[in-house]
């Protein structure tokens, strides 16, 4: 039975890949080229990462170190939805596209008159999805495809109940809608879709319910599935190129998606990928991370559990993996490595120009790989308090563990750093190519961990560990503050140009600009700007609610704006959102953020800033019925 299944899938996968390649080669570059051009323009913010490299960096510099203190609110928009607002709005050709958490509404706003909603999309979805979402009902944002002679420009989004929907970007009408997950077996969607060429890449969520991770590509024109590959299981399901890991055979090559699991545990083994993507058009490869193995209780899943916790480099058209590097083999701490992938071109220590990929992982290590071969270039601790690992051996790629901080049945492990929430979670960070610095929003969190046994039932939580989280050694554990950091990191030297502590985790990530500024939001509801060279705090503003999304910037009619979602929630704020008090509730988050509710409350919307608050409404007649 299994053999039949494998061979059938192998054939289907191959056929799909070939037809896809043929289909995509006709006119594929038109939309992609448009997207590249739009991403270079400061008038637009067409994808969550700003550009295919995920630099989250804008060359706009009207707002700079000298004048940032004059930033004032320009206009704002309430989404009418509470819960955590992750991600950021998109701006394309004078229209802002705003998303919300469940029920996953979308709004199009004309930047000439932001008080009027151009169109709104309110999907009908199964409310039961809320019950199987692991960590609040978040959504990480929208994707845009610019259209061609066959189909109109589209906004693509995922719904918590497992659907992926393409909307006409001009009208908001549904163009196609597919099922990409079934909540009855725990499969949800929180990740932003990623568009490259004419493909919509969509990840998967639900590892806390034992969901086996998968990544899927759909043809933007028709909604047709082009390929789907899994994080675990037979090679024919995982989608390995014939030369997989050829440059680094010690990472492992064939057969490991089953042989590093006991029996069929890979079928419920997690490895979902609900984070971010990057794409290199020259190599035609895209990059993302698969997350934690399931369940969290490590005793229940002997083996290295491949290919969970893996940085993937896959061919875009076929989806086949050129390389895979597993960062945390046999994870024992829920260090789900779905974190952001940022691409850069830099000289390595030997002076050789390299195409690099930098990934601040949840396990407390920031990895830099050659993104063509998968070679490990550097792997350094994001903070010296990370203790589960002594270091990463760059030759073998293996973490050198400290067994004192391992976890096991019948034992409460204490003071493990990072916590399950990681030193870095879903935040979208930034890279300044001039300074060659990565700006990292960091959690400073540690934990106690005690596993327990439980059966697997499809569609039910399958975690198997109690967790107590608290601020790390540099914070104030007693009072529940000092759980965040912001740092500037050089991936070649491994040095930090500067580092600053924050009251709470910097959950949403950073945005850098050529104005020499680093922007980010905080859980307690501030948007802040720091000097990119020194880290000096230059400006801040108190928002209506806490931030778990990332800032973005765009220029409209000659004015540079900074925009950010507010709306506290997500994993760090589940205690606040769902009124939980047990410190180990919310998968261990409640205790760590017990102080948060004294600093902010729920809300939901977008706040837009400009110098002196310059706004379309400076013309007071705009939108008036009668003056």
């Amino acid at each position, binding site marked *: 039975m299994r053999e039949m299944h494998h061979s059938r899938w192998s054939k289907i996968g191959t056929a799909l890949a070939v037809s896809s390649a043929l289909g995509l080669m006709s006119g594929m570059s038109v939309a992609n080229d448009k997207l590249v051009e739009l991403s270079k323009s400061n008038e637009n913010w067409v994808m969550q990462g700003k550009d295919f490299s995920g630099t989250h960096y804008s060359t706009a510099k009207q707002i700079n170190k000298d004048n940032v203190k004059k930033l004032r609110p320009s206009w704002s928009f309430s989404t009418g939805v509470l819960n955590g607002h992750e991600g950021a709005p998109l701006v394309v050709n004078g229209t802002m596209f705003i998303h919300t958490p469940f029920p996953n509404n979308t709004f199009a706003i004309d930047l000439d008159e932001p008080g009027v909603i151009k169109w709104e999309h309110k999907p009908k979805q199964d409310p039961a999805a809320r019950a199987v979402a692991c960590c609040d009902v978040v959504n990480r944002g929208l994707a845009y495809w610019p259209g061609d002679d066959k189909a109109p420009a589209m906004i693509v989004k995922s719904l918590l109940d497992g659907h992926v929907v393409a909307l006409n970007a001009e009208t908001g009408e549904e163009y196609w809608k597919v099922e990409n997950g079934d909540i009855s*077996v725990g499969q949800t969607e929180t990740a932003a879709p990623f568009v490259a060429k004419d493909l919509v890449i969509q990840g998967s969520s639900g590892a806390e319910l034992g969901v086996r991770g998968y990544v899927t590509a759909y043809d933007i024109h028709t909604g047709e599935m082009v390929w789907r590959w899994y994080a675990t299981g037979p090679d024919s399901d995982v989608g390995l190129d014939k030369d997989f890991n050829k440059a680094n055979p010690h990472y492992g090559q064939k057969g490991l998606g089953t042989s590093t699991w006991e029996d069929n545990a890979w079928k419920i083994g997690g490895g979902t990928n609900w984070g971010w993507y990057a794409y290199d058009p020259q190599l035609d490869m895209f990059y993302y991370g698969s997350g934690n193995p399931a369940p969290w209780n490590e005793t229940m899943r002997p083996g290295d559990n491949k290919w969970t916790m893996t940085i993937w480099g896959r061919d875009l058209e076929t989806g086949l993996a050129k390389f895979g590097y597993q960062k945390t083999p046999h994870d024992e701490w829920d260090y789900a490595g779905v974190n952001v992938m940022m691409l850069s071109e830099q000289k390595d220590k030997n002076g050789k120009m390299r195409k690099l990929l930098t990934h601040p992982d949840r396990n407390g290590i920031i990895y830099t790989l050659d993104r063509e071969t998968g070679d490990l270039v550097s792997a350094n601790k994001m903070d010296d308090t990370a203790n589960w690992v002594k270091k990463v051996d760059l030759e073998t790629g293996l973490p050198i563990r400290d067994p004192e901080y391992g976890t096991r049945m019948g034992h409460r492990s204490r003071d493990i750093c990072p916590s399950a929430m990681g030193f870095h979670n879903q935040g979208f960070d930034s890279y300044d190519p001039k300074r060659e610095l990565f700006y990292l929003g960091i959690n400073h969190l540690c934990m106690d961990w005690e596993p327990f046994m439980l059966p697997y039932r499809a569609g039910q939580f399958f975690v198997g560990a109690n967790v107590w989280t608290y601020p790390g050694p540099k914070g104030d554990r007693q009072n529940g503050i000092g759980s965040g950091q912001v740092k500037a990191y050089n991936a070649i030297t491994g040095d930090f140009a500067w580092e600053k502590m924050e009251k709470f985790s910097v959950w949403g990530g950073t945005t850098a600009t050529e104005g020499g500024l680093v922007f980010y939001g905080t859980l307690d509801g501030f948007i802040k700007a720091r000097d990119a060279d020194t880290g000096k705090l230059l400006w801040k503003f108190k928002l209506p609610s806490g931030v778990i999304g990332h800032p973005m910037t765009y220029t409209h009619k000659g004015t540079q704006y900074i925009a950010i979602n507010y709306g506290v929630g997500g994993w760090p704020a589940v205690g606040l959102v769902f009124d939980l008090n047990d410190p180990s509730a919310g998968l261990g988050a409640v205790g760590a953020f017990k102080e948060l509710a004294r600093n902010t409350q729920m809300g939901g919307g977008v706040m837009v800033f400009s110098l002196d608050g310059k706004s379309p409404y400076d013309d007071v007649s705009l939108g008036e019925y009668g003056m």
Partner: protein
Amino acid sequence: MKLKTIAVTCSALMMLSGASAVMAYDGTKCKAAGNCWEAKPGFPDKIKGSKYDPKHSEKELNKQDAALKAMEKRNADRVEQFKKTGKWVY
């Protein structure tokens, strides 16, 4: 590349040699490239039949795959209809 291969091979050989027996447990002992997990002292390397056996139901384990196959079929039908009519019917 060659140096790296040699280093990895040496490392693997060292781990397979008797020298590893006197080394403290660190969770890593490579049986093959990419297959390095080692059971913790006092814990089995196979849990089937042990007190940690979760006794998974094969029926439950197969539900995710069945759900995805069913969705793929429904999606394919929708796409076929869309290609024929130009109208998406969910």
